């Protein structure tokens, strides 16, 4: 069987490596100081999609992402690893979206893509850690949903068998297609970029990415004409026949009331060295005060 697979992927600031300059003096996030990366769980989802494609010849894998023009990089990273195509949702109207508005945009885009058998994404993105967008997309498209997947064991007669993580254990479920799957961090890592594919796609770009580069000139027009696969799909709200009132900030029921840096009440602390005398003294003090038994 051939399957049409869409991978949901997000470009995220690398919050795992937050340096001292990540916050501005006003207490807002200094996005420029953080490198933008392929959300780690989404890479694991891409790997599962690519494996399905290999096991089921004729299947296609497309990477769907939403973000500013530079998020075109996510599609390129997908193409380098073996994806067939990609779509970048980019429009100012998408900006400021909470998870519900994000899932509306993604679900609407998937309807536009057409017949999709499997939608697969990471369990959660590291900049929000909410794990909400996957199930919300599934609900909007009426898809069966399996979250926290560790491995897709196989698909037979239109029914997927999936091993998934649960609290305190694992379970195996069967679920008919069409289906939305979110992939847990414990799944197999993604393959590296393929050198041949990097050569093929390194100049691939979305039109808006080029608009923001000063070197844009007729060279790309020429390239696009000769090598149409280098022109990546870029969709606005209008392109997906979206309802602007359900996108971005306008379509977000949750509002941020306040954002603040956490300032913990500093305690009066005793500073000790690691010397025998200091450690011995501390242990005795804790024992005497019956803090430890």
């Amino acid at each position: 069987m051939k399957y049409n697979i869409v991978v949901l992927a997000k470009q995220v600031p690398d919050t795992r490596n937050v340096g001292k300059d990540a916050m501005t003096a006003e207490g807002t996030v200094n996005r420029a100081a953080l490198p933008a990366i392929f959300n780690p769980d989404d890479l694991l989802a891409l790997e599962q999609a690519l494996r399905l494609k290999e096991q089921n010849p004729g299947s296609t894998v497309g990477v769907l992402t939403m973000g500013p023009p530079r998020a075109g990089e996510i599609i390129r990273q997908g193409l380098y690893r073996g994806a067939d195509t990609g779509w970048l949702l980019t429009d100012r109207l998408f900006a400021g979206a909470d998870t519900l508005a994000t899932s509306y945009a993604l679900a609407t885009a998937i309807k536009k893509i057409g017949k999709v058998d499997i939608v697969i994404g990471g369990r959660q993105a590291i900049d929000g850690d909410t794990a909400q967008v996957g199930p919300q997309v599934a609900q909007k498209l009426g898809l069966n949903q399996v979250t926290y997947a560790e491995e897709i064991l196989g698909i037979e007669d239109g029914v997927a068998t999936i091993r998934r993580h649960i609290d305190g254990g694992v379970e195996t479920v069967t679920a008919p297609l069409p289906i939305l799957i979110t992939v847990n961090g414990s799944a197999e890592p993604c393959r590296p970029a393929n050198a041949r594919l990097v050569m093929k796609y390194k100049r691939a770009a979305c039109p808006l990415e080029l608009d923001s580069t000063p070197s844009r000139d007729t060279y790309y027009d020429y390239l696009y004409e000769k090598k149409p696969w280098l022109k990546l799909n870029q969709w606005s709200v209008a392109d997906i026949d979206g309802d602007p009132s359900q996108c971005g900030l306008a379509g977000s029921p949750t509002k941020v009331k306040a954002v603040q840096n956490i300032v913990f009440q500093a305690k009066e602390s005793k500073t000790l060295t690691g010397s025998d005398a200091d450690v011995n003294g501390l242990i005795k003090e804790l024992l005497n005060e019956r803090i430890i038994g």
Partner: protein
Amino acid sequence: MNNVFVYCETEGTKVAEVSQELLTKGRKLADTLGVQLHAVAAGEGITGKVEDQILPYGVDKLFIFDAPGLFPYTSAPHTDILVNLFKREQPQICLMGATVIGRDLGPRVSSSLTSGLTADCTQLEIGDYDDVKTGKHYDNLLYQIRPAFGGNIVATIVNPDHRPQMATVRSGVMQKQILDPAYKGEVVVEDVAKFVPEVDFVVKVIDRHVEAAKHNLKGASIVVSGGYGVGSKEGFDLLFTLARELHGEVGASRAAVDAGFVDHDRQIGQTGVTVHPKVYIACGISGQIQHIAGMKDSGIIISINTDPDAPINKIADYVIVGKVEDVLPKMIKYYKANSK
């Protein structure tokens, strides 16, 4: 109408602890708002088994959904139970655990009802809100407070115009407390077929292994916790030795878990376990806010770090400036020598 709802997760006939923690919090929110606390439980063979685990937390009304196929949990039937119940009952707040189940169910329900959902809240409060853009004033909204952006900031989220206001909370963040063992709440056993169409049961659980927790990190009175600074899996052996001596448990920061030094279930912080021990010994932990959110209410905090300016030192009672691998053997040695 307008009551506070808690979705109670069940494993067989046992109600999850996180649900009882949320019932305790839900009771307080309901009192502040002057409304009732309602609970929902769905499973198989739970009638007569779960009431005593739910009502004593001050639940005024418990809705029970009991039918084959409702346990083990799958997404669609539980979603339709909540969606259809909420359409009838119109709650203003719905809380659920930020567990695998809650994080599968919550977003599906919120999408269906077009209501906002905030994940992994660390505090829930009631307060007013003024929308700067529209100039509209709202009374008594649920403040959903959570660390955001990898735990580097704290955000207060509100859902002004959509109901219910939904939030998930991780296990251990709230403290459970029985209000009255004999609390008189009403129990309503609903007809599941009226809520859940047969087509909802298409996803089947064919195999399932659940192990009892290997450790009791959440309830430990002493926690020895390691960060990336511990350096290796082997480095954690020292932490386990000290924890064993002190009858404590070993925890870890996200960085140490991501590096593969210890199992994921030992992670302390906003996206892990929240602990409230008597003594918290932080070994080589710098103290990202997302970690501190999970341990700041510890009694005595001891930080062992080569960096005297590590952020965690600000909230520590004792700071030992030194290498973990030098200090821990001494702590073990002198504990053995002095405790006899």
